[in-house]
């Protein structure tokens, strides 16, 4: 049963229909359609005009299309997220096609990477199937009936890759060119890229030239487009913490899927903390036995290897973190019985606020040289799971000197060795620990040095960083506020940096305090997507230093600390805000968030279609009435 174009007769038909078939009302065709129009933007942005999809009554504007069709083709960047950085042309028309009518798919590449290209094409096909509203478990009911305007159309894909490297590091060229042409019945997409990673991004963009068409119940693809694209920053990540609360493998897969949809490329995995050690290291099973919440909260080696591959196919490097010398604790209880002495001191010590920043406490025992025996075993167990390493995160944050300085064993050791008991004495020993940790990691990695990343901390405070850390060997991840002068000092000292300033890029903020209640958590308020989007590292650095340090800024990460996050709410807290981060890091736009708003809302819809429980940003009315939810 369909509505006619004339609304008067339509209502009449509808009423008849209702009176006879009241119990099996199927559906009707909406009276609304959309037209792409150029409109002024409120405020004084640059540019002053923007292309928007405007809701109109189809009986009045017969050329109006469905909302998806309009969004795919409206504006200079269509529905591509993040916005391409190079010359981009998006044509005004789409062609229908069905996933079963994907015709020729060719890959021209070094043989060693064909396997990966094939897998990423499979991901692409699955992703476009997911656009169907009734997609379940790997398939969608493309049942029709379809007319020839759908069934006669096909999509061809040609991918050309020149390099054979499958390593994603700061030197990887992630650029691609995408060219889509239409010859009547065949839409042909050609992706040219130097690396697998660029080609994958090209396929991602192609999937964003495609969407579901409600009226035809088919897919549609923009049938002429040229995109030339490459990212501004090489490090575009999110950090996920699986130690405070466990995230199951499925939810990590979903996170990786959503990252790929936004061309993020670093999954920084804060696996362990003082709360738990959920990683089963086969050479050191005691860690997980004592350290996990339960037998169902464990990452098996096979899980890690699976996720590493899963991420790689989606253009993502899993950056492992083993946080030390603080943020260790549960899991290390076995060492005394095993004759290794106390490896962790202040373990679960009370009252916690005297010995650490949050319960439970725990810190490596500097006085016990067996910490290196255990640390090297942990690295030996971890490294093969994540190899090849492009970088490694040592953590290194929030050491509590009072913990060390109230532990008799450590006081005795500091005194016996004439190190002294001042703060600086402890910083000195901490930096020696850090250097030893770096050497152990390098050894575990077959003597191959990789860039080490550590958090800003007391070691990186004013006057400290260059004293304790080598800018050639360490990258500093900044979590203090975006206007902290220490950022300037680190850059002037020559450190490469990654931004995660909590005032914009901590996504767990704005909820109730988790120790004690009622009250808000420490980093409140909640960071809305606009705040995430407008946090510009190059600008922040230049505001502090008055100079251009863009070559030392590798990129950024949004952080999702998991005190109040687990598999059930990670999607909604990460997405779509981490997509806003993605456009900042891929495109580094000079325009305000307002210019990205309609694409952002559509990106959120795309994430939901792909099975991610991304949060709503607005009433759906704002999606259907672009530009009318202004302030």
């Amino acid at each position, binding site marked *: 049963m369909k509505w006619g174009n004339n609304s008067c007769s339509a209502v009449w038909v509808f009423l008849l229909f209702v009176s006879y078939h*009241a119990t099996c009302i199927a559906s009707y065709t909406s009276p609304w359609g959309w037209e792409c129009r150029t409109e002024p933007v409120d405020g004084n942005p640059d540019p002053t005009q923007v292309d928007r999809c405007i809701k109109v009554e189809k009986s009045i504007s017969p050329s109006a299309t469905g909302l998806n069709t309009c969004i795919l083709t409206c504006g200079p960047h269509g529905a591509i997220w993040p916005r391409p950085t190079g010359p981009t042309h998006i044509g005004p028309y789409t062609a229908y096609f069905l996933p079963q009518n994907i015709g020729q798919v060719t890959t021209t590449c070094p043989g060693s990477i064909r396997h990966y290209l094939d897998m990423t094409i499979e991901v692409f096909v699955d992703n476009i199937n997911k656009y169907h509203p009734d997609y379940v478990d790997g398939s969608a009911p493309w049942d029709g009936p379809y007319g020839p305007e759908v069934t006669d159309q096909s999509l061809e894909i040609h991918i050309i890759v020149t390099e054979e490297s499958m390593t994603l590091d700061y030197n990887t060229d992630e650029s691609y060119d995408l060219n889509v042409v239409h010859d009547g019945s065949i839409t042909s997409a050609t992706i040219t890229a130097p690396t697998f990673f660029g080609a994958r991004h090209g396929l991602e963009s192609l999937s964003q030239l495609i969407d579901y068409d409600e009226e035809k119940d088919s897919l549609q693809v923009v049938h002429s487009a040229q995109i030339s694209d490459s990212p501004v920053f090489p490090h575009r990540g999110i950090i996920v913490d699986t130690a405070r609360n466990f995230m199951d493998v499925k939810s990590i897969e979903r996170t990786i899927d959503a990252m790929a949809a936004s061309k993020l490329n670093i999954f920084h995995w804060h696996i362990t903390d003082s709360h738990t050690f959920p990683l089963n290291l086969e050479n050191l099973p005691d860690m997980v036995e004592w350290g996990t919440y339960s037998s*169902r909260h464990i990452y098996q080696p096979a899980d890690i290897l699976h996720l590493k591959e899963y991420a790689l196919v989606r253009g993502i490097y899993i950056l492992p973190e083993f946080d030390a010398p603080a943020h260790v604790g549960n899991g290390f209880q076995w060492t005394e019985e095993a004759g290794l002495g106390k490896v962790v001191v202040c373990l679960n010590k*009370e009252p916690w606020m005297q010995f650490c920043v949050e319960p439970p406490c725990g810190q490596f025992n500097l006085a016990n040289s067996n910490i290196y025996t255990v640390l090297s075993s942990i690295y030996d167990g971890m490294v093969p799971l994540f190899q090849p390493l492009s970088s490694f995160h040592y953590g290194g944050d929030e050491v509590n000197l009072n913990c060390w300085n109230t532990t008799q064993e450590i006081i005795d050791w500091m005194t016996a060795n004439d190190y002294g008991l001042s703060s600086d004495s402890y910083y000195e020993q901490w930096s020696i620990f850090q250097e030893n940790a770096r050497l152990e990691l390098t050894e575990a990695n077959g003597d191959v040095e990789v860039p080490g990343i550590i958090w800003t901390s007391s070691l990186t405070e004013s006057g400290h960083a260059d004293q304790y850390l080598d800018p050639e060997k360490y990258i500093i991840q900044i979590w203090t506020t975006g206007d902290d002068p220490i950022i300037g000092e680190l850059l002037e000292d020559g450190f490469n940096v990654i931004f995660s300033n909590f005032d914009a890029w901590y996504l767990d903020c704005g909820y*109730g305090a*988790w120790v*004690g209640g009622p009250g808000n958590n420490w980093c409140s308020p909640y960071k809305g997507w606009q705040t995430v989007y407008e946090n510009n590292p190059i600008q922040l650095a230049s505001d502090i230093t008055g100079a251009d340090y863009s070559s030392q800024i590798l990129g950024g990460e949004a952080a999702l600390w998991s005190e109040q996050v687990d598999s059930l709410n990670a999607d909604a807290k990460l997405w779509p805000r981490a997509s806003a981060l993605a456009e900042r890091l891929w495109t580094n736009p000079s325009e305000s968030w307002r210019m990205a708003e309609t694409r952002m809302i559509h990106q959120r819809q795309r994430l939901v279609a792909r099975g991610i429980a991304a949060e709503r940003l607005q009433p759906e009315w704002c999606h259907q009435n672009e530009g009318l939810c202004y302030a």
Partner: protein
Amino acid sequence: LTSSTGGRSTPAGVTVSLLSMMRVLVFVLCLVAAASATFGNYFRMPSPYHYSCDNQKCLRQDRNQKDEQMHQSTSFRTARHITGEEHAHPHEHNHEHPHEQTEKYNSLAECQLTCGEYGALWPRPSHKVELSKRTVSFTPMNLRFTKLSSSNNEVQQMLDEASHYFRRNLHFMHPDYSDVNKGPFKNYEDDDMSTNDKPKYEKKSPFNKQESSPLAERQNFDVEITVTQPDTQLSLNTDESYDMTVQTMGDTVTATILASTYYGARHAMESLSQLIAYDDINNALMVVSTAKISDKPAFSYRGIMLDTGRNFYPKEEILSLLDTMSTNKLNTFHWHISDSASFPMYSQRQPQMTYYGAYSPNKVYYPEDIREIVNYANLRGIRVIPELDAPAHAGAGWNFGEQSGKGKLVLCNDEDTPWFDNCFEPPCGQLNPVNPEVYNVLGDLYKDIIEAFNPEFVHMGGDDTSFKCWKNSPEVVNFLKQQQKEANTQELFNLWNTFQSNAYSKLFEASGQQSRLVTPMIYSSSFVRNFIDPKQYIVQLTSNVNDTNISTYITNGYKVVFSNADTWNFEGPAQSWVSKTTSFRKNEKRPSWEHVYENSPLDMLIGMNYQNARSDHFNQRSNAEQQVLGGEAMVWSYETDPSSLQTTAWPRGAALAERLWTDPASTPFQAEEAKSRMFAHRQRMVDRGTRAETFQPEYCHQNQDSCYSQDEFTSRQQNLIPAN
């Protein structure tokens, strides 16, 4: 089998090198893995920890740690007992000698079931609770409803459905029960039960595939339910109380439930399910071996509001919401169906409303959907209150008027004037009070609503009416001019009154079609205080906590439902959906579950000098005569849709539930004291398939006395018991 999986496997005396210890461990782990292979294909490890119940909290301990060491390590915790609390609960004899008489539990779940006065019950019973310290293991396959007794056929059928729902929820406790198979409980009736076949939920259950320990397999579990009254619809005066006993004699556990109404009986079944948890060691369930509970709610209106006007929720999502509400003994689903943004309810009498007003043809609630929702809710002890918000918050759908010759039904709904000049948020829209056709359409919509919902209450909205809109509308200004009136505040108030009176008559007329009386509800406003008759309406108070207007309503005798904007409003996280800097947040803070929990309507009134608010409330002859009917949390859908509804509503909705069911005393750390039960309850909601948000590291749940704030620490130190 039991001992090999349950015992801590590390042998004593491993003092040799790390390597040899690892070898032993690996060997033992292999043994354990082999032994547990019959249970399933997951990796099962013996835990090095066990739990003991200490001062109402379950504390994790190293199994190998010697007793003195344990005393030492927990001495800080022990010292934190509050003297006053011990006197309050003299029957908790464990307090006298906290370590000598403490049971050791193999799992947190087992400890949690029996620890403290209320075990894992949520909301906690308001009258009597006695729980033994022991549990009995059983398999859900051995659960039998040996008696479902009522004098009424319909009640009998409802009990039968509820018994299946109960049984299904027990199966869901198995950690291997697949989440994709957990959804609204709809299809068991389709199962072919005549051939003695198992229902679907049981076929899919891991209990059906994995053996339990022989001990659990031998245990019988009989449930007997007696309902004395024939009620099949919830009203304010429905008796929701119940009495329940659990007894264990030999190899049979018997749970006996006695309730006046079906509604009390179904609440009892919820409570019974909360005396049960998964038993990892026996791959079985365990139930508290003896229990006595006497329980009834403090308030008869315990609600959640959902806004389906700003974003749409498929029917399944609403059914899931009802399921989780029923887990919490919440009994009122207030459905804010439409708003100016969309009109998703299909009206048989005015189909254009949906045609023009729905977001898409797939985003419509048809009458049969509504009937299904109402029936599903009733089985879960929940009334559904439909809301048709007017005269503001109306727009989408109403714009068909001009084309169909009815004139302008809605004003300010065009885009020519900036929204902030006409209303409080985009899109604007306010019904045209001077067009008689508006009342005809309203009347039709009320008729449709009453047919589909058969409601006890209808919410008429009435919030956010903007005089700017009416002042800016020539239709209104000209109408007033014809009567020699100006569009000043007084006249606009009168106009509003005209609108509300006409709308009320239309609702009254429409409600003549059904057997029971419809009571209208309305949001609090200055208009209500000036014009609304306390005898006719129930007022939903949406002002902030301690707003002085609250006492105006109380003094003037309005019956009220509390929905304080700063504590019981579950809006989205940022509320900055029109710009980075414009936030619609009513309050600096996003209320946490603790804020929700600690918001006590009766104590608020006592603080406003209604000293007898609590005794007045509990001394009324009937619930309907109480002035504070209860409370409701509101989920406005600016930034919420099916992706985040569950994490938005839960567990905060559970905090509301205990406030309204139990009316816990407003003590300084009341939420803190409920926290361990709340965490267990949150896990229970998760096991039933609800994405309830976590609010702490799981560490805090496993170490229930470790996550305190500086304030609590200081305060408890001041109440230290002298050592020994």
